[in-house]
Every structure is written in structure tokens, then in C-alpha cells.
């Protein structure tokens, strides 16, 4: 019977028990979760557009972050592992070079010293095509003896600089060539890119909130009469709000997944050329993806931003709809 039953002359209003209430609560959430997804699927084009915009907005800072991470990984070894060349004064005998090399090898911050005699240097140089004729025109070997010093890996750029300076003051040394300035410049650029990616992340995160918020606002407007009916039959603000929140959640999650796909495609497209480039430099550097945690951050971040956008939209617009 659907009408109130009489019991002892009083009307019994059958409400749900506490356990049923809790179960009902979770069932309601599950239904809302799937229901909101279904609603998105019923307007595939509009949903796809929204989700694509979110995906792009999230892929940009994530992609930039991947680039910065790779650039830092690439350059991390440079500053300390860079060899520097110590040129002896012209006329210094090879024996002096050998002595200096032996002393240098004893230094704690030096792992290897190679002596390149003037003759060897000339032989190396003459291997370059086009140089041969020019060198043969010279009567004397103009090249000095050289030490190639390899500092201990992990040494800071400053320590490497001090080490090089130390060589410059030694007897019989003409010039120390330490070319780390470009590494520092490169690191400075990477640092700017890293900061920029942080700012872009903030701006585009805000954009995602606005996009989802606006989409949900339109959704609310389209379902105005439905919302009024819900309010008329006793739907609480939370009950009416929930499907919209889940809608925002889905936009964010799917947008995040799309961003993952965008980034993976970009990485895949770049992996080959980067490997070829690395091969040219004789290193085995390979592009690093964002990893599982990066993917989780994209999807989780999308969920959070989508939920937030829907939360803002429902806070602002659901209140205004009242049955009349």
C-alpha cells in the first residue's frame, strides 16, 4: 500500500532505517557517478569539445614539465663532468707536461689526466679534411703540449672552476680552457622554463576550473525545470548538486586522460629524433616520460580541478533556482 497505514489511530510515516540510509547514500553516489557519465555520453560532441579543451590545457604545462625534467637530467652531469684543457707554454718540454700530469693525478678532485703531446695534437688535427694542406705549409708544429683533466663527477661547478684556476697559476702553464659558461647559461634557461611552467600550470589550472564551471553552468540552465521539480519534492541542495559535481569530476578525469594521450603522442614523436641527436653526440640519452606518478597527477589533478569548477558553478547558480 502506498498510502499511510493506520496504526493505533496514528499515521505511520515509514522512513528508512539508519543502515538503509547509509547503504542508500553509497548507492546514490554510485548512481550519480554513472548517471553523470551517461549524461556526458548523451551529448558526445559538446562533451568531447569541453574535454578536448581541458586535455590541451592540462597537456601544455605537463609537457613543459617533461621537457624541463629532461633538460635538467641531460645537463645535470655537464657542469662537473666537463673536462678542461690545460695548455703548456710553447717551448715547454714534454717531460714538464708529464710531471704536471703526475702531480694532478694525485689531486683528490681529479679522476684522470691525459697528456696530449704537440705531435699527437697535430696528428689529430690533420685528420680533419681540409686541414692537411694548411698544416703542411707550416714549418714548425705550432701546437703546445696539452693536459686534458677530468674532474671528479659530482663536483659543483664552482669547485671545478677553482680546480681550473689552480692549474692556471702553475709554472709553465699558458692557458686553462674551461668552457662551462654555456652550461650555466643553459641551466639558467632551464630554470626560467621551470618557473614558467609553474606559472602556466597555475593559469591553465584556473582555466580548467573556469571551463568546467561554465559548462556546468550551462548544464544547470538547461535542466532548470528538472531542478525546480527536485526542489519541490524535497530534494536537498546536496542531492541536487551531486550529479553536477560528478559531471565536473568526469570532465576533469577524462580531460586528464586526454592530456596523458596528448603527451604520450608527443613523446613518442620526439623519441626517435632525440635518440638520433644523442647518438650524434655519442651519448645514450633517451627522453624520460612523466612516469606513472606524472600520469596519476594529470588524472588526479583533472579530477580535482573539474570538481572544483563544478563546485563553484553549483554554489553560484543552484541557489538561484527556486520553484514558483
Amino acid at each position: 500500500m502506498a498510502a499511510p497505514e493506520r496504526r493505533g489511530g496514528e499515521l505511520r510515516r515509514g522512513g528508512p532505517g539508519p543502515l538503509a540510509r547509509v547503504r542508500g547514500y553509497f548507492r546514490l553516489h554510485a548512481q550519480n557517478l554513472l548517471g553523470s557519465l551517461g549524461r556526458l555520453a548523451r551529448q558526445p560532441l559538446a562533451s568531447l569539445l569541453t574535454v578536448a579543451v581541458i586535455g590541451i590545457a592540462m597537456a601544455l604545462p605537463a609537457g613543459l614539465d617533461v621537457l624541463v625534467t629532461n633538460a635538467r637530467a641531460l645537463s645535470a652531469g655537464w657542469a662537473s663532468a666537463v673536462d678542461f684543457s690545460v695548455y703548456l707554454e710553447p717551448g715547454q718540454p714534454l717531460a714538464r707536461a708529464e710531471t704536471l700530469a703526475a702531480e694532478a693525478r694525485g689531486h683528490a678532485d681529479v679522476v684522470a689526466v691525459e697528456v696530449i703531446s704537440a705531435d699527437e695534437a697535430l696528428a689529430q688535427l690533420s685528420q680533419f679534411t681540409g686541414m692537411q694542406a694548411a698544416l703542411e705549409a707550416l714549418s714548425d708544429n705550432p701546437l703546445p703540449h696539452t693536459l686534458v683533466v677530468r674532474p671528479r663527477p659530482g663536483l659543483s661547478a664552482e669547485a671545478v672552476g677553482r680546480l681550473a684556476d689552480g692549474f692556471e697559476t702553475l709554472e709553465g702553464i699558458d692557458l686553462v680552457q674551461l668552457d662551462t659558461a654555456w652550461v650555466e647559461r643553459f641551466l639558467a634557461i632551464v630554470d626560467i622554463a621551470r618557473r614558467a611552467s609553474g606559472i602556466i600550470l597555475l593559469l591553465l589550472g584556473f582555466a580548467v576550473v573556469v571551463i568546467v564551471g561554465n559548462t556546468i553552468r550551462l548544464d544547470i540552465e538547461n535542466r532548470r525545470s528538472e531542478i525546480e521539480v527536485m526542489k519541490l519534492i524535497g530534494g536537498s541542495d546536496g542531492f541536487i548538486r551531486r550529479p553536477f559535481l560528478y559531471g565536473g569530476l568526469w570532465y576533469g578525469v577524462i580531460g586528464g586522460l586526454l592530456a596523458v594521450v596528448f603527451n604520450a603522442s608527443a613523446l613518442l614523436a620526439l623519441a626517435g629524433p632525440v635518440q638520433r641527436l644523442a647518438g650524434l653526440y655519442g651519448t645514450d640519452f633517451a627522453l624520460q616520460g612523466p612516469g606513472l606518478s606524472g600520469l596519476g597527477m594529470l588524472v588526479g589533478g583533472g579530477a580535482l580541478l573539474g570538481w572544483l569548477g563544478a563546485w563553484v558553478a553549483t554554489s553560484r547558480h543552484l541557489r538561484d533556482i527556486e520553484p514558483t
Partner: protein
Amino acid sequence: MIRFEAVGKRYSGGGEALATLDFEIAAGEFVFLTGPSGAGKSTLLKLVALIERPSRGQVVVNGQNTRKVARRRIPQFRRGLGMVFQDHKLLADRSVFDNVALPLLIAGFAERDINRRVRAALDLVGLADKAPRLPLTLSTGEQQRVGIARAVVSKPPLLIADEPTGNLDPALSLEIMRLFERFNELGVTLLIATHDIDLVTRLGHRRVELVEGRLVGDTGRRHGSA
């Protein structure tokens, strides 16, 4: 069940819709609210359902003074009464079953209870076989009965209806009124706004008449009706 104490209602930008109304409806009564268009019938019902608030005086529903119901508590308050509308107000994209189930879903009932209660309510209005249909595939009279099933599915002690037979022919109107009488026999208090004087006269329940926001007639409680 319902008590109006010196209730006045003035819409902002409008005239006086209700002026100093005093009357009471006891639990178990069947009351028709009549009067010409613009008399204030809908306004009165809206005050009962807290869709509007009185400008003056008190409206007490089910023992609760509506003045003391905060905005936040209105949903809970509305779950204590069933409402039937002239235009049904069904959700077009949900089945008959889902429409009727909505108040139970809102109240957090378990799925088994929802199934049982919705079936029972649809049985009562004679639409058991229409559960999977969409509202717009039903006739107007059937849609109105879906609206009624939704209003009674959570077994509220009070049912209010604004011109529930406004779009129906006399035969269907009588059918709907008979349905309301069955609920009344089960103990539900009914307040039904209508301008169908023939039907009101024929059924012979208590009649409260408004003209220009004033109470101009009240046949008083009919002892046979509860």
C-alpha cells in the same frame, strides 16, 4: 494539520494576493479550495508548501510554524507533504518508475524498499503496467496519475493539489477525485484547489471559498469525510 492565523500575502510588485486569512484544517479532512481565477488559491497552497512565505501572520503545517523553518530545512519540510500539480511536473527523460521513485531516492530509502513502494503506488493509481514507459508516451490523465503516485509514494500525511483536474475531461476528473477519496479513507489529509464547481458540489466535501484573497465561504468539517 493546517492552520492559518491572520495570514496576509503581498507579492513584491503585485497587489494583495491574500488578506487576513484565518482557518484550520484538521488531520484526516478532505477540503476543496475554490474561487475564481486570481482569488489566491495557488498562493495559499504555496504558503503551505513553503514555496512562498506569508507577509503577515502564521502558517502552521503538520505542527510546524513555517516561519521557523529555515531555508536549509525546507527540503526536509517538503518531504512531509505530497504535492500534485496541474502540469504534473514529471521529469521527461526518466521512466514512470524512476519519476515515482524520486522522493524515495531523495529520502535515502534502500533499493528493495523503493521497488516495493513504487510498485504499490503505481498499483494504487492503476499504472502498474506502465512503469518502464516515458511520461510523454502516456495520456494526460495517466501522466496526472503518475504525478499522484509520486506524491503519495513516501506516504505523507498531507496531500495538496493545485487544479489537479484542470486539463482533464469530466470523466477523468471524477476518476482522479475518486483516487483522492481513497487516500482520504486511508487517513491522508487533502487540500485540493479547483474551480470545477460541479465536481465539488457532487462530491460534497468541505469547501473553502476565496474571492480576491478573502475567505468568503466555508462549509465546515464534514464528519463523513474523514
